[in-house]
């Protein structure tokens, strides 16, 4: 679950990472002096999209952003600074060890930066003085201890899968401020953090669903097969509207829910469904599709193979829903239709 910037910064404050003074608001407010007004949305690239404004007139900036459909704003004091650096913490998948990622070039897209260093800090010992010293020397910045320890705690105590400060501002007199926050809490560990969910009034989504910008609805079973289906649609000239994995052993209710959800996306013109029944039963899938098609009116192309496939085909046939046994033909026909 990705946190909003202001939520991430509340956690920062709580664990001792300094942030600029600020307020969260949903309407224009009065503000003395120079400030930064930042749209609170979950998508990245706000700067490039003009959703972050440095201004003397906060009221006007909020009104302007409101006209773009933004309804939550973080207003912060403007921090003059001489340097911006990058710091984040996450778990390295290969070593199963937390790492701190640092770069003396903050405020940019970290992926395109060549100047990045990774510091491994094993779980058994946690952050030590020499870790901090090594990172400070690399970045040529002093006073990082509370920030490194804070980021590390976000990963090891709050179950963040990513805790990122980009940029961390260094002022001329050496004070540090996290100007932005990106904190993604691990969905699977949220049961340990009910207090945070309550505090932020958030509920994580349980579905394996990702929205994309095309017009062909994609449903599959199993993450790998669903991704592969998405990729094949793209390779064959179509544009996927989503990724929806109904998961292993999906019953008719789950399938029905998925088809209705994808079918009711106004951008979706047709649906491609790719099912290989292992523990999932094809007859259950077929019944789910038939149920959903009492409401959904868009064309659907179903590839159905595996456990109980004959029963599944029969159900689809009786309900005049075309089916395929081969995914490539199914996708091809769908794209040509």
């Amino acid at each position, binding site marked *: 679950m990705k946190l909003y910037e202001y939520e991430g910064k509340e956690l920062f404050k709580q664990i001792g990472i300094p942030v600029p003074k600020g307020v969260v608001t949903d309407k224009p407010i009065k503000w003395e002096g120079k400030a930064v007004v930042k749209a609170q949305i979950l998508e*990245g690239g706000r700067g490039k999209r003009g959703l972050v404004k440095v201004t003397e007139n906060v009221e006007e900036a909020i009104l302007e952003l409101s006209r773009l459909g933004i309804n939550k704003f973080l207003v912060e004091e403007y921090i003059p600074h001489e340097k911006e650096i990058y710091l*984040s913490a*996450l*778990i390295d*998948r*290969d070593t*199963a*060890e937390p790492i701190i*990622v640092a770069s003396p070039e903050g405020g940019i897209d*970290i*992926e*395109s930066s060549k100047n990045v260093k990774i510091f491994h800090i094993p*779980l058994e010992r946690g952050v030590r003085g020499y870790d901090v010293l090594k990172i400070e020397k690399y970045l040529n910045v002093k006073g990082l201890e509370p920030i490194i320890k804070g980021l590390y705690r976000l*990963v*090891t105590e709050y*179950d963040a*899968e*990513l805790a990122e400060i980009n940029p961390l501002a260094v002022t001329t007199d050496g004070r540090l401020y996290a100007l932005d926050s990106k904190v*993604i809490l*691990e*969905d*699977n*560990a949220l*049961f*340990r953090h009910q207090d945070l969910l309550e505090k932020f009034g958030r509920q994580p989504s349980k579905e*394996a669903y*990702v929205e*994309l910008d095309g017009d062909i609805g994609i449903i*599959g*079973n*199993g*993450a*790998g*097969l*669903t*991704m*592969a289906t*998405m*990729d*094949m*649609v*793209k*390779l064959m000239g179509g544009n*996927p509207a989503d*990724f929806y*994995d109904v*998961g*292993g052993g999906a019953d008719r209710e789950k399938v029905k829910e998925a088809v209705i959800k994808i079918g009711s996306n106004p951008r979706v013109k047709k649906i491609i469904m790719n099912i*290989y*029944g*292992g*523990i*999932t039963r094809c007859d259950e899938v077929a019944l789910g599709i038939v149920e959903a098609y009492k409401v959904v009116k868009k064309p659907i192309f179903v590839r159905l193979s*595996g*456990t109980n496939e004959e029963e599944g085909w029969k159900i689809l046939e009786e309900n005049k829903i075309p089916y395929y046994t081969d*995914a*490539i033909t199914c996708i091809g026909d769908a794209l040509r239709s």
Partner: protein
Amino acid sequence: MLDYGTKVVAGVTPGKGGTTVHGVPVYDTVEEAVKEHEIDASIVFVPARFAPDAIYEAIDAGIKLIVVITEHIPVLDMAKVVKYAREKGSRIIGPNTPGIIVPEESLVGIFPPRPFRKGKIGIVSRSGTLTYEVAEMVKEKFGQSTVIGIGGDPIVGTDMVEVVKMFDEDPETESIVIIGEIGGTMEERVAKLKAEGKIKKKIVAYIAGMTAPKEKRMGHAGAVVYMGMGTFESKIKALKDAGIPVATTPYEIPKLL
């Protein structure tokens, strides 16, 4: 598993000790089960919140192979469990895996039997259904020696590199199919070994997730790209540079073998 011929000698469910399921005796603890039977492997179906306990219990009882089917175990828990297992000399397969199957011999997992036939292709995969698909495609012409799902999570007990090395040494396996996806750098590390000449057998690869947007999790907890590590492009490049044929769709794999 019983139907497939796997000798399931004991089950463990706290509070159900003394009962039987399909003729298999149930115990309250793994320790009790180990006292009564000779046990080579354990399979864990326990819900995510309690799964780490079940894995620790199996490790402490000295079981050397632990297959964890459970999905949604927190990464931090797995990071600790995996380390503990390594120290104690137990091998974990998974979590979030369909398991391991040696066709017509043994199954520790939830693979459906239909796509499998004894043969010479070793398949290692981060996926479930996609593995069944690929297995079925190579079933008639080649058959499979061993099929291992390593699991779709960011941290797994046994990674693709280890399995590829084992396949390379396995006399039953003639060629290797790897089914990867975006996120992590396992596929890149397999490519590196191949490029260095450390893997002798033929490898064919498929990678899912070409169209996945960055930082979006595609169903599997492990199918997500952070910091630009493990993108589709980096995997394809590494594999191709190592001379490993890469299938553009999973259905192309049999042609490349």
